[in-house]
Every structure is written in structure tokens, then in C-alpha cells.
């Protein structure tokens, strides 16, 4: 049985923890709003991009002039996985969810006898995947110092991936990130970047019907467009990740705050009980002392 003083100390420390988790929850909520706004603001670009891409892809068709980034190397031997996670922990199962999803994927590919290479974006994913696949991780991108993720960050990753592709380091590239469904639900998602999956977005009726002039020409534009599209996809994934991380952090911290509250209640109860018992004990001592006289 802990003494009264011990209980008091524990109550005080749990209260302090609760204050911290509460503050973290509020910070996460504010950041979540900003992240959501950023994701929202980025949407028009990626939407129009896929519309334009669908349009040009249609015009170029699947003949030989289509760039290699779109058709792939024609092989399926080496897979590159780009795993995007958060830089910080304390956000529930967010990071481990993505890592587990990626890990299952790696195991599956290895089971099929394929070579796997991994690029980690974000520290947490690296920490988790390093345990199992240290030899496979060829690169890591650190975004810890980046306050607000900009297109430049995504573009840099995109260029790095394309550079590797040009050197023939891999055949297929897949991006792993967490799709932001709602504050309480983030779904780990895999997105194939190279060869670029045929865009599914329907071009608007007007632009589909129009006969376009291409300047300089469709192939050239496509060459310019596809690397850019890869960067845009990465950018979108990073933004979704930030929003998801903040959502997960918010609900994790909310839970922690609630648990701390429960714990304080319990501790206060046993504190009061013990205090009462002590008072009773003292009273009995006094009374029995008086009776003995």
C-alpha cells in the first residue's frame, strides 16, 4: 500500500502528463487544420494534371514514342518501394501501420523472387524497417527540418527516383503512404509511380472532343509532364501523410488525456480513502486512550 505522500506525488505527476497530452492534442488539431487546408489547396493542380495527362496519353497512344517512364523497362525484376512515414512518433499506430503494410509487400515480392530496394521518407519508417530490411534500404530522405512541406521537397524526391530509374536501378516503383480518410481513419495505400499507370481520370467532354495543337509536340510535352506528375503524386502523398499524422496524433493524444483523467480519478479515490482511514485510526486511538484512563 503506497503512503499518502506517494499517492499525492503520483496524482501530481499524472496531472502534469495530462496537461502535456492535452496541449499536444490542441497543437495537433491546429496543425491538422493547416495540413487539411494545404491538401485541399493542392488538389486542383493534381486534378488538372491528371486530366491533361489523360488527354495527352490518349493522343500519343501506346506507340513507341511514349516515354520509358510510362511504358516501363518491360521487366518486372527489381522493385523500388518509397515508404513515406512521419518524422515523429506519439501518433498511435500511424507509422507502424504504413511500415507493416510495406513490410508485407516486401515479403510478398521476395517470396516471388524479386529484388527489392527501399527508400525511406521520414525517420520513423526508417527506424522500423531498418530492423528487418537494413540491407535493402538504399536511401533515406529526412524532412525533419522542413516546417511546411513544399513542392520543392517532393520534387527533389521525384528527381532522385527518376535519376535511379535512368540508371536502370529498378523496374517498378511503388509509393507507400497513408491516405487521409478522416481524423480517425487513415488507410495505408500503395501507389504505382513507374511505369505510370494509365491515368483513369476522364478528360472533360470538351477537351476530349477538341483536336489539340501541341507545342512543341505531344511526345515532348509528355516527356516533360510525366516526371512532373511523379513529383505531384509524391507531393500529394506527403501532404496526405502530414494530415493523417496529425489526425492520428490528435486521437492518440485525446485517448491519452482521457486515460490520464481516469487514472487521476482512481488515484484520488484511493487517496481519499486512505486519508479517511488514517483519520478514523487516529480517532480510535484517541478514544481508546481516553477510555483507558
Amino acid at each position, binding site marked *: 500500500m503506497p503512503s499518502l505522500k506517494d499517492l499525492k506525488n503520483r496524482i501530481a505527476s499524472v496531472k502534469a502528463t495530462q496537461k502535456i497530452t492535452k496541449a499536444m492534442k490542441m497543437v495537433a488539431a491546429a496543425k491538422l487544420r493547416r495540413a487539411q487546408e*494545404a491538401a485541399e*489547396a*493542392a488538389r*486542383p*493542380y*493534381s486534378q*488538372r*494534371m491528371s*486530366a*491533361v495527362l489523360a*488527354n*495527352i496519353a490518349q493522343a500519343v497512344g501506346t506507340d513507341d514514342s511514349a516515354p520509358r517512364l510510362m511504358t516501363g523497362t518491360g521487366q518486372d525484376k527489381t522493385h523500388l518501394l518509397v515508404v513515406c512515414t512521419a518524422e515523429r512518433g506519439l501518433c498511435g499506430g500511424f507509422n507502424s501501420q504504413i511500415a507493416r503494410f510495406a513490410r508485407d509487400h516486401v515479403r510478398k515480392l521476395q517470396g516471388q523472387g524479386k529484388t527489392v530496394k527501399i527508400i525511406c521518407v521520414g525517420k520513423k519508417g526508417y527506424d522500423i524497417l531498418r530492423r528487418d530490411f537494413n540491407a535493402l534500404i538504399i536511401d533515406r530522405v529526412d524532412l525533419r527540418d522542413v516546417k511546411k512541406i*513544399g*513542392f520543392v521537397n*517532393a*520534387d527533389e524526391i521525384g528527381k532522385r527516383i527518376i535519376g535511379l530509374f535512368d540508371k536502370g536501378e529498378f523496374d517498378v516503383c511503388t509509393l507507400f503512404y497513408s491516405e487521409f480518410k478522416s481524423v480517425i481513419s487513415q488507410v495505408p495505400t500503395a501507389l504505382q509511380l513507374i511505369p505510370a499507370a494509365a491515368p483513369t481520370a476522364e478528360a472533360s467532354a*470538351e*477537351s476530349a472532343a*477538341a*483536336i*489539340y*495543337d*501541341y*507545342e*512543341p509536340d*505531344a511526345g*515532348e*510535352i509528355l516527356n*516533360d*509532364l510525366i516526371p*512532373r506528375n511523379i*513529383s*505531384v503524386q509524391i*507531393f500529394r502523398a506527403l501532404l496526405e501523410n502530414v494530415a493523417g499524422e496529425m489526425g492520428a496524433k490528435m486521437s492518440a493524444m485525446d485517448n491519452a488525456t482521457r486515460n490520464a483523467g481516469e487514472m487521476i480519478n482512481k488515484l484520488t479515490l484511493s487517496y481519499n480513502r486512505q486519508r479517511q482511514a488514517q483519520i478514523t485510526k487516529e480517532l480510535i486511538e484517541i478514544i481508546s486512550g481516553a477510555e483507558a484512563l
Partner: protein
Amino acid sequence: MADFNFELVSPERLLVSETVSEVVLPATDGEMTVMANHAPTMTTIRPGIVTVKAAGKTTRYVVFGGFADILPSGCTLLAESAVPVEEFDRTMIERRIEEARSHLANGDHADEHKTRLEQFLSELTHLNGVLVAA
């Protein structure tokens, strides 16, 4: 004069979405003025200045590469990065020039890639000159 819808979008946000009468784009093959009922055209953009004219008012934006999707009813410009000229900071372009230079100097690039880089660099330098004069 007939008006049409113009949208300037950067990856970070939608910058402009309004009805305008005339837009001048720095297309790869030369400056290009878009007005209403333009033939459907798709073109890449080089670093330069976009001039937007709406109701007698002219706004200018600095863009760094991208492409434009032009339809009779509207024009969408997807820019890699875009800022209004007034807010433009010269250090930005200098940083880019620096980057492009070091990129060109460092790696051993394929010829085609190298030409493209050199072209990009010269476009940036040119743009820098224009902006300093302005």
C-alpha cells in the same frame, strides 16, 4: 471583347481563377497571346512572366516552368511555381540559377539532358535580367 476563364495553378494552391480578356504566356516556342476562342492548344512553359489582362487591369506573375492547357472557353496554366511580380523576391531566382549551375557543373549528363539544362539556365538568366530592369 469576349472574355474567357483563366486559371493559374501551382502545386501549392490555386492562384488565379477569374474571367479575363487576354493572357500572354511565355511558351517554349515563343510568347503566345491567348484570347477567347483560341484553338485548343497544349504547350509547355519556360520560366518567364505571365501577363493577365482583365477589365483594363493588368497583373503580372513570374512562373517557373509548367504547361498550359488552352481551350476555346478557357485556359489553365499549371505552373511549377508562380508568384505575383510585386511579391517576387530576387533571391529566389538567384538561388535557382545557382542550383542549375551547380547541377550542370557536377554531374556528367547525357547530351540531350545537358542541352536542356543549359537552355533552362539561359532562360533563368534572361528572366533575371528582365526582372532587374523592371
